[in-house]
């Protein structure tokens, strides 16, 4: 099933084929979409419905269709998802892929934005658990497993991202987290929260920037 994690789509092979078929050959009826992916409608229909729920494809009712009345087409969001999925994982910025992995929802979590939820739930002055976890994971190397009990549902492709030298932006984030850790060790949770929040802000900025 197509997931969106921190702006990065992950599509399975069938989804990618369907989106590619709609992208390359234009809108088509269910049977045509199935044939384009060398498959049959009974298998393609549920995938199309899922993609439709996620806004990656659009369906239009047409009148008097001999072979059905649904015309499927790819949406701009679907095009974006396809482009992202077409990028080999090695070409994807490692930092963003790691971010996508770190914010992957828990297997039993209904929301992909665990950090934001926890942050919003915490009263000011207390250290939000999500922030600490994110801060810790941003500081951890991609292959590190210590303290990441929630990583069971992570994207396997993201794990395979090769290690590279962190950029100045990432180093700044790491330093802020370390300062936060030091403050927390000294019992100054307010100060620690400030550092973690600064790091979080930078992480979000990095996530939003087009070159990220």
């Amino acid at each position, binding site marked *: 099933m197509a997931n969106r994690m921190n702006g990065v789509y992950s599509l399975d*092979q069938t989804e*990618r*084929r369907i989106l*590619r*078929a709609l992208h*390359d*050959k*234009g*809108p*088509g*009826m269910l*049977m*045509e979409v199935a*044939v*384009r*992916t*060398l498959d*049959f409608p009974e298998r393609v229909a549920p995938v199309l419905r899922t993609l439709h729920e996620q806004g990656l494809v659009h369906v*239009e009712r*047409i009148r*008097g*269709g*001999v*072979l059905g009345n649904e*015309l499927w*087409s790819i949406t701009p969001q679907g095009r974006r998802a396809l482009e992202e999925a077409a990028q080999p994982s090695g070409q994807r910025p490692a930092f963003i892929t790691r971010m996508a992995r770190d914010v992957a929802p828990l297997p039993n979590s209904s929301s992909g934005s665990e950090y934001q939820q926890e942050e919003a739930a915490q009263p000011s002055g207390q250290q939000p658990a999500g922030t600490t976890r994110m801060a810790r994971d941003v500081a951890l190397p991609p292959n590190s497993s210590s303290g990441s009990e929630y990583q069971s549902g992570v994207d396997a492709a993201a794990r395979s991202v090769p290690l590279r030298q962190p950029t100045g932006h990432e180093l700044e984030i790491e330093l802020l987290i370390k300062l936060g850790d030091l403050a927390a060790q000294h019992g100054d949770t307010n100060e620690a929260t400030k550092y973690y929040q600064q790091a979080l802000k930078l992480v979000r900025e990095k996530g939003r920037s087009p070159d990220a």
Partner: protein
Amino acid sequence: MTSLPQLLLFAALSAAVGVAWGLSELVSAFALDTGYALRTLGAWLLLLVNAFAPAFIYVLAASFFPELYAWQAAVAIGLAWPVVIRNLHFNFSARIADAASDDSNAADQATSVRFERIYTNFQSLAYRMINAQLAHQRAGLIARVVTDCDLNDLEAHARRLCIAQPVPMSDERENENLSNERCSEYIDNIMMRESVDEKKMYLSAFVINYFGRASLEEFIRQQKHKVRKSIPGVAS
């Protein structure tokens, strides 16, 4: 002073350039089905708008600025008319920004954005009409195959096309041999379906989507010819 026939001639020149612009949009949007797309109502509507809008803009501009009574100006307006729409938006907003407060500026910007959106909405309506009509045409062609053509001939035709024209699959462009194997495997899977009509439908859809409508139309023609030949007393 320029005469009315001359003004109309220049306007027609603007319209012709606008049509060429619209055609290029259609060609890029329907690269695989350009010929068929151009024969749809949606395409004609889009081309008409692309003809009338620059002609109207030219007549309007020439009535305000007499120096625009020249074929060069007509061509320039024809080429630039989609840009003109966007420029009108910017000019309009900029003029208001000098005189009005922040709030009214925001309202005016919203108005001008809507003006630009009219064309975009119209264009997407035309594209939807074209796509729907193309889908109807394909479905009609498939229905004709189901009623008029022989299954074995259709299967042979699809297999011949697979051999003659390797099909690069979306995900396996780097490995065409594999894709040909998959094509043949897919035809085998189709032939395992229960209903004859279903088999014909899938095979026709397969031919249309991988080898183009012309391949299936040619097959239908061959079948008609074959049927005519098989009827005693009917000259070929």
